[in-house]
């Protein structure tokens, strides 16, 4: 990074990049004045694995499994967006039943991701009992995922032209039971996160992203919706079966009547989206037509068809963290010519800067985590002050955050 001139009043603290709890290592360098953050610099690329390059020797069906490994949490979104792009190029028509099954899978993933995030957020501000409560509920969502796809994490459910597993009639009772459990426990979660006084004190007015900044910096997903920008691929365009379903933008004013763009608003948006997802799955189970689940069940035939197509396409899907967009160009070969992945965190990096400016060191974990950036804990903080170097371990930074919560509770 660029050497910055340090004045007497400010000092720099680096945060990150590696910690086992980080889903995506990120390196921050903060310029601090006392307790206040004056400036932030973000450095990326610690886990750039060249996945797009690895696709150059793979055919589209093999790439589905590669795409699944882009991210452990969004293991449905990436292959889905890739499949949408390829289907767009090859003009493959998807069976109607498959469109509904795809919605069910993506909403189930959203429930898992948002409850995971809520647990991490609770941990960041020092409520570990809430973390366990939330993840206990999440566990049921994972059980349901395993029941429907065969796996808890890498689901391998997407196929170009449809999905690989159906939800048959005899699977419905267990599915409905799982959904009922989530519905019953949603109220408990809502009460803990939205009504608790200390939660409010730590999250309200903290890490604010204005609507103007959200638009200018191209933020996506719950981060931008919490700032009042109505942008949700599921509502904005017709893809999968979302065009048939009753779905609307969730912004914090739905609940509170106002938009502040702070951490609290981001909690509201994510929690309400969990409820929306349960509702969408129920709508799908209700309306799902019968029929095929994949356009072309013979893989060899499908690959042969894809080998002949020429053109470019874009696949867009609303992942739990925001819009994911895949650009694919095919030129009549086995492997696509270009494959460009854009995950939502990519667009939510710049919005961190206005969010973190002016906040306290103890707020770094919760503000950084509030965009759900695959960045939930911080590794080590080395503080260089007056040429004397001392380090804050991740535990120490976490302790500062917990202490602030306790201080507020007193």
């Amino acid at each position: 990074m660029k050497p910055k001139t340090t004045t007497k009043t400010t000092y720099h603290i680096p945060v990150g990049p590696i910690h086992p709890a980080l889903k995506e290592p990120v390196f921050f360098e903060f310029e601090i004045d006392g307790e206040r953050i004056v400036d932030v610099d973000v450095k990326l690329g610690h886990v750039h694995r060249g996945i797009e390059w690895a696709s150059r020797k793979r055919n589209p069906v093999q790439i589905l499994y590669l795409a699944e490994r882009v991210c452990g949490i969004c293991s449905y979104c990436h292959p889905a967006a890739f499949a949408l792009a390829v289907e767009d190029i090859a003009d493959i028509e998807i069976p109607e039943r498959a469109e509904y099954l795809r919605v069910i899978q993506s909403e189930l993933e959203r429930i898992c991701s948002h409850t995971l995030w809520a647990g991490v957020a609770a941990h960041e501000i020092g409520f570990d009992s809430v973390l366990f409560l939330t993840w206990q509920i999440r566990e049921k969502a994972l059980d349901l995922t395993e029941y429907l796809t065969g796996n808890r994490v890498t689901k391998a459910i997407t196929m170009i032209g449809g999905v690989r597993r159906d939800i048959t009639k005899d699977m419905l009772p267990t599915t409905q039971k799982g959904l009922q459990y989530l519905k019953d426990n949603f109220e408990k979660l809502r009460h803990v996160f939205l009504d608790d006084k200390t939660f409010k004190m730590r999250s309200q007015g903290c890490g604010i992203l204005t609507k103007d900044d959200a638009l200018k910096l191209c933020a996506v997903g719950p981060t931008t919706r919490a700032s009042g920008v109505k942008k949700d691929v599921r509502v904005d365009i017709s893809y999968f079966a979302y065009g048939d379903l009753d779905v609307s933008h969730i912004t914090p004013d739905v609940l509170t009547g106002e938009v502040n763009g702070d951490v609290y608003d981001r909690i509201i948006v994510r929690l309400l989206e969990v409820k929306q997802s349960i509702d969408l799955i129920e709508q799908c189970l209700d309306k799902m037509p019968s029929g095929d689940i994949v356009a072309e069940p013979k893989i060899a035939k499908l690959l042969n068809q894809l080998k002949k197509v020429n053109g470019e396409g874009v696949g867009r899907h609303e992942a739990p963290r925001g819009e994911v967009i895949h650009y694919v160009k095919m030129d009549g070969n086995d492997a696509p010519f270009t494959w460009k992945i854009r995950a939502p965190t990519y667009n939510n990096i710049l919005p961190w800067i206005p969010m973190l400016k002016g906040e306290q060191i103890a707020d770094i974990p919760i503000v950084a985590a509030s965009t759900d950036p695959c960045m939930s804990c911080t590794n080590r903080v080395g503080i260089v002050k007056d040429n004397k170097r001392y380090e804050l371990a991740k535990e120490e930074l976490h302790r500062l955050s917990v202490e602030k919560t306790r201080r507020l509770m007193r």
Partner: protein
Amino acid sequence: MTKKEKLTPEEVVKSFESSFKSKIKSSQIKKRKAGSKKNEAVIIWLKIDKSAFKGAIEHLCKMQFPHLAVVSGNDLGETIELIYHFTLNYGGRMDEISLNISVELPKSKPEIETICDWIPGALVTEREKQEMLGVKIIGIPDDRRLFLPDDIPEGIYPWRRDETGPDKLYKNLHGVKK
């Protein structure tokens, strides 16, 4: 930063064509049906001459402030193609238009103006294009690398398919004969 009223895909294409005439090399409106009700999603592909690029972005921002999803790129041999993926009209129910503006740069002089002055959020993706495709973004506010580590030599661009591509570095990969 006000959002203007809803635009139809035909209006968008027409407005570009009347402002930039022959500088618009090709335009295509693609519609794709989905679900039981067969509602349509709209994708517009525009190919623009390099000389009109900055003007086109300005024109777009004045028409309606767009959301820039990402910039992707292709090495086409003689030229480098950059594709700017925008979305317009979001906020309504199934009104959104996906607008893809493609511009080709000659390899002898792969330079293009920054759009960060209009859309500050373009910084991350422009930095990525610089290091991955060896494109020079004129006027970029921050020209450091984004994803590439410091030990990748200068002049190697991972997305290139010519002698400046990453082939020289393969020997360092696991399982490759040295």
